[in-house]
């Protein structure tokens, strides 16, 4: 039993989207521009050429936050969305009735409809692929050119992620909602 989370050194991100492709290839994600378990948020810089604000152009890699108080799980009428033993939020596609309550409830827009199965799909932290084979990294972490991500057990004080979170300042997205996300952005 572990409590898996991910730390993101997001300033390293160059918006190359290697993570998105690695995720799709590893997990057999459906093709399509909006069919993704993982993405990089970006915005155009403020200002007018040539006076553009560099600090306003940020790349923010993201995916399911695997919240400890996950709104998606709370609203699911069939218990299709559940926490596994390692605290990973998963969808049991056999139980999913595509009511899409979870998609509306998720504050992070981390879910989409897989049109092959007509069920809701999302990031699994590679639990049924890489972790199931005994690997210790997710596909997005392993492939990243600038090494944005560190995945690991938050309950293990010696894990790399625990060390990073102890030694570096970090923040969570929409922390005020009280969802207790397990993605941590390093400053």
């Amino acid at each position, binding site marked *: 039993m572990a409590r898996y989370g991910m730390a993101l*050194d997001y*300033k*390293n*991100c*160059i*918006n*190359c*989207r*290697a993570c*998105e*492709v*690695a995720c*799709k*290839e*590893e*997990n*057999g*994600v*459906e*093709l*399509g*521009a*909006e*069919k993704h378990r993982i993405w990089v*948020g*970006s*915005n*155009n*810089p403020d*200002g*007018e*050429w*040539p006076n*553009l604000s*560099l600090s306003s*152009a*940020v*790349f923010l890699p993201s995916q399911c936050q695997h919240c400890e108080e996950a709104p998606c799980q709370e609203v699911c009428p069939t218990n299709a969305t559940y926490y596994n033993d390692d605290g990973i939020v998963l969808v049991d596609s056999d139980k999913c009735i595509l009511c899409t309550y979870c998609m509306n409830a998720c504050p992070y827009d981390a879910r989409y409809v897989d*049109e092959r199965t007509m069920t809701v799909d999302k990031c699994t932290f590679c639990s*049924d*692929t*890489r972790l*199931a*084979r005994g690997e*210790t*990294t997710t*596909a997005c*972490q*392993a*492939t*990243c*050119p*600038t*090494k944005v*991500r*560190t*995945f*690991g057990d938050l309950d293990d004080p010696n894990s*790399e992620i625990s060390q990073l979170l102890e030694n570096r300042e970090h923040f969570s997205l929409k922390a005020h909602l009280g969802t207790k996300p397990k993605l941590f952005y390093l400053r």
Partner: protein
Amino acid sequence: MMQKEISRRRFLQGSVALSVIGGSALAETHLLPSGKEPLSRIPESITTKTSTKQAQEVPFLCGICVNKCAGFARVEDGIITKLDPNPYFPKSRNMLCARGNAGIQTTYDPDRLKYPLVRIGKRGDGKYKRVSWEEAYDAILNGTRLFKGLKEILDEEKDNRSTIAYCNGEGLSKEGFESLMGEKIGTVNYVDEVSICLETVLGGYFATIGTYGEADLGHADYLVIAGANRAEAIITPDTLDLFKRSEGRGLKTIVLDPRFTNTAAKADRWYAVNPGTDLAFVLALTHVVLTEELYDKTFVASHAVGFESYKTHILSNKYTPEWAEKITNIPAGEIVRTAREFMAAEHPIYYQGRRSVFSKNDFQLRRAMAIFQGLSGNLNKKGGIIYGEPLKLPEEEISAPIYSQAKDRFDHEGVAILSQRAGSWMVFRDMVVEKKSPYRVRAMFMRKHNPVDSVPDTAKTIRFLEGMDLNVIIDILPSDSAMFADVILPEASYLEKTSPVTSYGLLEPAIVQRKAAIKPLYETKVPEQIYKELATVLSKPLFDISKKYDKDLQNEIKNRGEQAVYKEDGYILSDFWDKDVSEKNKERMVKAFGEKAWKILEEKGVYYPHIEQYHTQLNPNEYRYYPENRKKYHVQTDALKLICDYKHLAAKGVDPMPTWKEEYTFSVPEGQFRLITGRHAQFTQSATTNNMMLRDLIPTNYLWVNQRVARNRGIKFGDMLEVKSRAGKVTIKAYPTEKIAPNQVFMAHGFGSMNPEMTMSYGNGANDAILLEDIHEPVYGAAVMNETNVEIRKV
């Protein structure tokens, strides 16, 4: 955000259509019996979820761009389900980019060239007949009723081998093709990607500091990076080192680019330099450094050649920051600040860059950059430009015939220094098209190269190909250039072939080997097998033509007998490929590093001396490849120098010192826009625009138009625009943005395929090569990409 505004419908249609194709392809495939040979099957779905079963992990070297990153292919029952990064290769630092991950889709691209094809219709109409390999080789030798073969052409040209021309884009099997066409068949007329790419930067740096070197971005503390978009045009390990340390984390980063790129987004400062005026910026930096005496005097005293005359040159021409401000659009104060900060830094780097030539002054720009770097003294040391020491592999010996009837190359009109290996694509093409060549060029062999989309002025390249008696192409996908081929030979993709071992790196050198993850699909073949088989078919008939016209050969035969000459003088064209690639790799590795090294290479895909002791994991993401005291930060080398005044160049009509000329000034006529081209991180030129996975990320290219200009002209996102230059016109969707200047437009290179056989990329976006005029720079005849003006109109 741009991505959100794109309709999803087209993708859905694409996915549905392709899953059907995928299904039918599976039914056609022959399942190979299991045994020693790797299997190969076509997956049923586009993305295949990896299983928890045991799988083969085959070390491969990525072939989706020039970098050659290392990875392991996960192969489950003959299907490649995943590509993972290889943690042993210092160059790629345990990573694969978006394209590297999507390489699977190149292998399983339903539009791949699957069988040899011979043209049965008119050139360009797409009518081909599927033939056997034997029939395809025979068509190359003997022609068909629609086109002439090599035998007839060479006979008519009296064994002037140079009537055959060839081109090959970058890649590990390129040298083999050079051996086949250049050394064995014997033509001098070779053109490649260098003269439409980075020729001036290589030439400028070698001429000035004796190396192109490697920028040690892992330890530099100040970086000026101009016209090099490392966040989107990924170079390993530069990109990987740079962006872990930018944004206030040790590497101060100053970006010059006319457009606000993803690299600019990561910078401390971004200067929107006018296109083609970087040279004025560097000259002004130099002016500041010389007047304020900020340079490394010890280094200059011991290594510089012609420093005093360069100093006089810079000062007397008054290349002041104020002068440069008017030319570059960069405030004088910023130039002064950058010059002072650069020289005050401990490890400053003016990044060399590696890109296509943007303006006619590019060679001089590179010289000025290299000199400026040299003035800091930050060469051949940690945090500077590394000279280093590559690992050497034994050369392969080749027995090359000498053809006395073969004529010299001619593509030096208006060119000061013609590269001896591969000349100038543009000058060569233009002289052939304009009938200025001293003899007829009648056959074109193309491999892994798509000149129709990559050499500026597509219409002219098409005329060049249409003027040939015989066009042959060896490739993986039906490119636009393949439309003009008479014979098409389908090559295996990089995941289906073992390639010649290669050495990479100067600071942390390593040997790498690509191994075939699966057997070649369909009837495709690995390039070395194609070279060998084609050589076998051509040997005797072409020898017979030489016998007829080559007086020297006739004499040799008289003296030594035909059989002896044929065998001993290299006329058996296939003898270079008597051993296959794996066998040669083993021989060369064992000879250089021993049996154990070969075993390590086979298993890990990477070898360098002491890899087993040196290579250690630092954290879940990063590795140490060499201990600090074993990295080649500093080496004893005669190459280390700083040639400020290069007198030899003057004899060739080239400025011996970088000099600004009035004609370099950036100006755009009223109502027009300067077209600039470039890259995004999710495609490799025209080679990957048919890749299904990458199309999700970059579905098409857009024309960036300044937002205020667009508003005035009533142009909204997605509107169709007609873009017109003197060379041609295209239509493309608009992307209004403040990331570009009001008098410039940008489009990514590589889109707008004309070949309907490319179902994903056909007609999608626009091809910049149609618009780009046939402008080349004067030193090497390298194509100039950013000097074309265009008009735009909403349609």
